[in-house]
């Protein structure tokens, strides 16, 4: 399947890449455009040109916060945010390491934490992410301020994850079947 079609299919056809007429309104409103190697409009154009490697290895797809400003403002209803999400899925499926390492670590740790209790324990997810990305020490003073204000709960016993693990296993079985 051509790269563009793959992106479109994974986004549930929300990312209508071929309708993009490169007005760059998405890039203009994106809060992270100045930090991206490919700005949202360039990501859209690269997808159309089949520049698969460039897109899947970009920092842009991992820096995207999913804020939806681009999708909200696109005059062509192209939904670049959905294309960014589809590109993240394809990159992981191909075994391409997220080019913004911290974000890949965070997303993985997040879902792993859900498997314990169905819900996440926010302080554990933050702590583990910060530990694995070498930011733990800097984050301790703030963590302590939150503890004394009662905004950090002790981690719950991992007893409530059964319903999520069942769902997760059903998803895995379904995806293998495809």
């Amino acid at each position, binding site marked *: 399947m051509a790269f563009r079609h793959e992106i479109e299919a994974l986004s549930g056809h929300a990312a209508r890449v071929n309708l993009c007429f490169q007005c760059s309104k998405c890039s203009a409103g994106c809060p992270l455009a100045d930090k991206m190697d490919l700005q949202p409009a360039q990501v859209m154009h690269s997808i159309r040109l089949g520049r698969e490697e460039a897109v899947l290895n970009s920092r842009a797809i991992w820096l995207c916060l999913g804020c939806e400003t681009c999708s909200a403002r696109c005059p062509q209803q192209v939904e670049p945010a959905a294309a960014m999400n589809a590109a993240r899925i394809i990159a992981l499926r191909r075994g391409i390491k997220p080019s913004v390492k911290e974000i890949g670590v965070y997303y993985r740790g*997040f879902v792993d934490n859900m498997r314990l209790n169905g819900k996440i324990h926010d302080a554990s997810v933050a702590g583990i992410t910060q530990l694995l990305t070498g930011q733990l020490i800097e984050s301790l003073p703030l963590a302590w301020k939150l503890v004394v204000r009662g905004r950090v709960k002790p981690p719950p016993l991992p007893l409530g994850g059964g319903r999520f693990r069942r769902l997760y296993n059903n998803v895995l079985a379904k995806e293998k079947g495809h």
Partner: protein
Amino acid sequence: MRYGYYPGCSLEGISVEYDESMRRLFERLEVTIEDLPDWICCGTLAAPSLSPLLGLATPLWNVARAKREGYDRLIAPCSACLYHFKHAAKRVAENAALRAEVEAVLEMPLAAPPPIIHPLELLAADAFEPRIRGSVQRDLSDLKVVCYYGCHISRPAAVMQFDDPENPQSMDRLLSWVGVQVLDWPGKVDCCGAHFSMIKPGIVVDLCARLFEAALEAGADAIVVACPMCHANLDTRQDEIAAKLSWPLRMPVLYFSQVLGYAMGLPAERLGFQRHIVDPVPLMVAKCQQRMKDEG
């Protein structure tokens, strides 16, 4: 009307004061809410980044559960949870084959689920105006605030179908009903950096610095929010933001539910004011007292 309530993970942790104040406010307004039993995390951006099916099934588990409970509405105070629910519900509503696939994973039916709403959508409706105006017990007419809606309460419009995606008004309306001075400003729907506070805090500091600049420019005493991530980012990083802007910054950031509850006479501790990094109590007390002095 039966209202189901989905607090979400943040409201059990870093944003516990949003949950406390939301519940107190509903009690005060005599709105009965029922906690959704056995709810699971909405999956945020993490679940859909790993697998599209997981990204739909995780939020929809809660929607299917709410349907099974027979709620007429499901209330989600976190705008990220809200967005993931509404986005996933729209996807399966438009595609019967996809819905069947998700139903098989969930082992629950999904047809005709209850609408999912932000508490602002419930409370800013005309029907609540007399009840909210009639509940006011503290005069906050000297308090000047800007309302910060962030990303997902009304964006993207096709999914959220609530308020105006570029210039939302629901929170402005609600706060004006309790007498607060609501100022106009350009930051209403800009992004705070969301979950990047745990991963790339520098980005959050950059984005929040722009918001504080705009709020100060508008002459605000405080920023009022309706999302746990917006609150966490704006409340907890003001020292770093002050260093970046090189001017002192201590601006209280409050949930709309805290301001409404305070205006309705609820005590500050019951609304979780003591949990903030930037203590809002001196500001709120000063604004109330000033008014009493002016009148006395």
